[in-house]
């Protein structure tokens, strides 16, 4: 399993925020990677192909803290909402910051997601093709917002 997909070299000295993208679609994952690259951001990017894989990564401590999770909803095996439920019921992982990044505009999904205390609900189709806005948003977010470090 190659969880870490970006950047190619780890800069040990920088204490930066890690990103975990949970996404079954290769293209979307690639798009995020390209966006990070374009903005010359060196935050480590990890990818899980579905909720189950993401949980395994998190529980194995593969993702260095602090981290932000970008979560797709419609996925095989374990979908995003199921993942969120599992995450929030885990005493260690419950504090994780999660942004939902999905194509689903359904109110039901939005409400369900916020019920699980997501930090934001982003629609893929509203973002530009390369997720530049997403990465920009996250860049600002982690610069300004204090993240829980106890994780």
């Amino acid at each position, binding site marked *: 399993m190659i969880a870490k997909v970006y950047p190619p070299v780890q800069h040990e000295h920088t204490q930066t925020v890690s990103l975990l993208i949970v996404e079954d679609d*290769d*293209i979307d994952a690639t798009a995020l990677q390209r966006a990070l690259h374009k903005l010359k951001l060196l935050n480590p990017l990890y990818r899980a192909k579905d909720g189950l894989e993401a949980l395994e990564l998190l529980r194995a401590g593969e993702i260095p803290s602090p981290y932000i999770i970008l979560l797709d909803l419609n996925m095989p095996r374990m979908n995003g909402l199921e993942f969120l439920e599992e995450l929030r019921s885990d005493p260690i992982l419950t504090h994780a910051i999660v942004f939902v990044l999905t*194509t689903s505009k359904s109110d039901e999904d939005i409400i369900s997601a916020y019920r699980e205390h997501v930090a934001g609900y982003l629609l893929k189709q509203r973002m530009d093709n390369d997720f530049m806005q997403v990465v920009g948003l996250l860049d600002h977010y982690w610069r300004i917002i204090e993240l829980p470090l106890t994780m």
Partner: protein
Amino acid sequence: MHHTQPTSEVTNLSKKKDFVTQCLASLLFAIGAFVIFLWNSPTALAAIYPQAVAMAYNTAICIILLSFSLLALIYEKRQIIILCAAVIFLLSGLTYIEYQWGVSVGVHYWFTHWLAYSPPLQRLMSPTAAFCLVLASFSLILSSTAAPPNENNLMIPVVFLNFIIVTIATIALLGYGIGLIPVFGWLGIKMAPHTAIGLILFSSAMVFYFYQYAINTFNRLKFFYRMITGFGFMALLVIAIGSAAILQINTVSAITQELYRNSWQVNNAVLRIKTEINTINRALKNTAINPTIYSNNKIPNDIKFAKTIIIQSMAFIRNNEPSMINNINEFEINFSEWEKFVLASCKLLDSKDYTQFAQRTLYASQEQIYQLETILERISFHAQMRITELNTLATNTKNDAKNLIYIIVTIFFIAGLLVSSLITRSLTSQLQKIRQLMLNLADEKLDAPIPFTDHPQEIGDMARTLAIFKENITTRLRLEKRLRQVIESTPNGIIMANSAGVIEIVNAQTEHIFGYDRSELLGKPVEELIPKSAISNITNNGDIFFTKKAIEAMGTGHELLGLRRDGSEFPLEIGLAPIEADDGTKMLAAIVDITERKNIAAALNSSRELLELTTRINQIGIWEYLLESDHLIWNEAMFDIYGRSKELFTHNHNAWRQCVHPDDIVNVEKTFQESMKTLTPYVSKFRIVLPDGSIKYIHAKAKVEKIENTSKLRILGTNMDITREELTFAKIHELETLRSSIVEYSEDGIISKTPYGIITSWNAGATNMFGYTADEAIGQSISDLLFPEDRREEEQMLLSSVRSELVVQHFETIHRCKDGRLLNVSITLSPIKDAAGNIIGVSAIKRDITDAIKSRELLAKRQHELEKSNEELDRSNKELETFAYVASHDLKSPLRGISQLSSWIDEDLAEKKYAAVDKHTQMLRNRIQRMEKLLDDLLIFYRAGKVEGTQNIIYLNQMAKDIFEIQNTKSGLQLETAADLPTFTTLSTPFEQVLRNLFSNAVKHHDRETGVIRLSYRELNEYFYEFTVCDDGPGISEKFQHRIFGMFQTLKPRDELEGSGMGLALIKKIVENYGGRVSLASAGRGCCFSFSWPKKM
């Protein structure tokens, strides 16, 4: 009722008795038959043969006959009894005669003669047995006339005879068993023990059978005869026992006789011989010592004399002891030798040869004498032995005689007790009963029946005398009762008091009048019935005149008065009469309570006053019309009714006519004239007009009569104001008309019936509805008329609930019309009550609800259809929602991918980074294909709901193989099909699609080089097959199983395994569309998809 109980008891008893007797008879028969059998085949039971045939052949025959006669006794076959008894008597009697008188008729060999071979042992019937059998035959002959139903006095000797047989047989048995009387045997011949047992059995059975009858018969004998019978029995007993004693004495005397006749005499004879021989011997010895004393011929003479004596003695011995004959002969030989020797010796004396003589005498002769003495000793010893033997026998016999005496005393004692107690009991119990009866009669208890009235003798006389007593008492009691009834039922109160004024007799009416209970009055002074005010005038002198005075005192003043228990006084009438009785003069008073009479007089007066008042209040006008004088007399009420004043009214017929309503006057007048002409009572109804113009209805009645002794007519009548009733009636009539028109023209059938369902009214609606006219229906039972057979009990149920005052509403059932049509009706029932609230009928309203039911059913059907289409709508809505949802993600996502990829390619081309371009172009194409596939599958999915295509025969085995061939992309995978896959007709297209998708799924997800996919099936139930496709691929973990049938659900990212995620959703939709079910079973590796499919579309 009273007689059944004892009768059945008697029947039970006699049944029991019969049973026991039968058993004994069978036992008896068995004994006899056994002995006969052994006589006939001595070898069969050789070991016990000698003991068994101790019973003579004839005895055995007699025993069998005895058993027959017992059975004959039970079944009342008199001839058989007599026949058996005769044979027994012949056999035993002849035997007895043979023994007793020595006549030989060879009766013993009559039957043994016929045996197959001559028996090794010959036995004769013992004289005792013969005697007993003779007695038995007597008892049988007697019993043949004495047996029930005759039950005559001969039963007593029957029982006695059998008692004797039992006694003799018991003594014989005791002789064997205990040895009390060891030599008991008549003429020395003993009875066999089993003969004794047989006789005991027989006699016991007879005694058992006849005992109760005998006792009953005995109880009917005269006292004197009972005593005689008792003593006779005892005498017989004593004779029997005495005979035994006599036998014993005979035995002893026989022994003694023998003792003296033989043995002692023999002994004496021997002694005599010895003496003679010794005398000669001494003479010889003396001569030998001193020959001088020898005188010529003395010794030979002595010898001659001795020889005579010896010969006599020997002859005696020979006669009496025949067993000694050898010794006697030997002695005689020796003696004659010795005689010759001595005579020879004497010759020597004659020749003076003394030495020689002495030699012979002292030696040789002594030798011979010793020989002779030895022989004599032997005879003597024998005789002495015999003496000792007889002595012992005599002693034993003496002891036996002693024992016998004990037995005699004991038996006599027991028998005496028994007989005397029987006689005493027989007498005392009867006398006791008679005494009890006398006591009962004395107490006037007449219920108990009088026993013994059928007895011929003393007791019977007593009983019959008592019966006469009883009759007298009954008559007296009946008379007394009748007298008491007369006194009791007299309407007057009757009191009898003695001279001291104490009440002795009262009757029920007295109790009633004075309010006392009888027990409270009897023995009380008569003053208690007199008011205190009246009694103060008189004093108790203790004579009859006091009583008279006391009773007369009731009448002090103008009215006679009595005093009741509750202290109230009442008027009375009294009649007095003195009666002279044995114990003094009595005063008899008859009392009548005249309260009622007085009350009636008073009531008459007041009722007259009341009448006037009532007529006034009730507006009953009374009038009198004297035709001759045309005078009309009205009472006050008439004026009230007519609203006329007495002063202004002209009191004649015409004045009245003017009051009458003009429309009615003609009729009224006509009726009036008619009743006057015929002198019949007059009744009429008319209206009058009051002065204020209002109208009243009048009901008039009148009687026309002639005034006595004249030809004048007088009419006396009443007028009653019935305006209110008339108006009410009119109203009722109106309502009734309304009601009946409602009933008659109602569409509903309105029926009334009795509380038990007989129709009493029937309206037009009912006729229309059911086809029966009112005439046909009324009087019929409604359940027979309208209810179909299987629903008749419903009517009963309905009627019973109405009878319990329940109202039945809208009860729905089915009725049969006249033409047989069945109608759905709704029934409403309510009770019809009379004024008192009793249910006198039931009203039933029946409504034809056939149409209503039809429309109700239609409505339900429509509703069901609506619900179904609603469900359909719901489902397709849900599908639509799902579609919208998945379309927003799954259909857009390839599009977005395409857009992204194309922009990346642009960017990369612009930046001249060609490395990724190829990959991206590839991905671009892939996304386009995925899009196409999704759209295709979506189309298939939405079409799946529609039933289309044709039904074909599916050869499943072949079809599965074909599909698998097409779907299989991996060469290592193989299909296994169950051998029994069915061939059936169905819509082949959807079925094929399901199968294809399952195969393709199994193949696509298989993760190994080789594998097996299996298709099997089973019959789920009568409507469905169930097919199962199993693979040995990776399996599906349990937590995903619930998702796999969803739309666009995949278990792997599409980038890894291309697939629309529609396959299983499609299967589910197709299968459920045809009413089937899809299910998944997977644990660990491998998974099985099962789906059910209808057998017939």
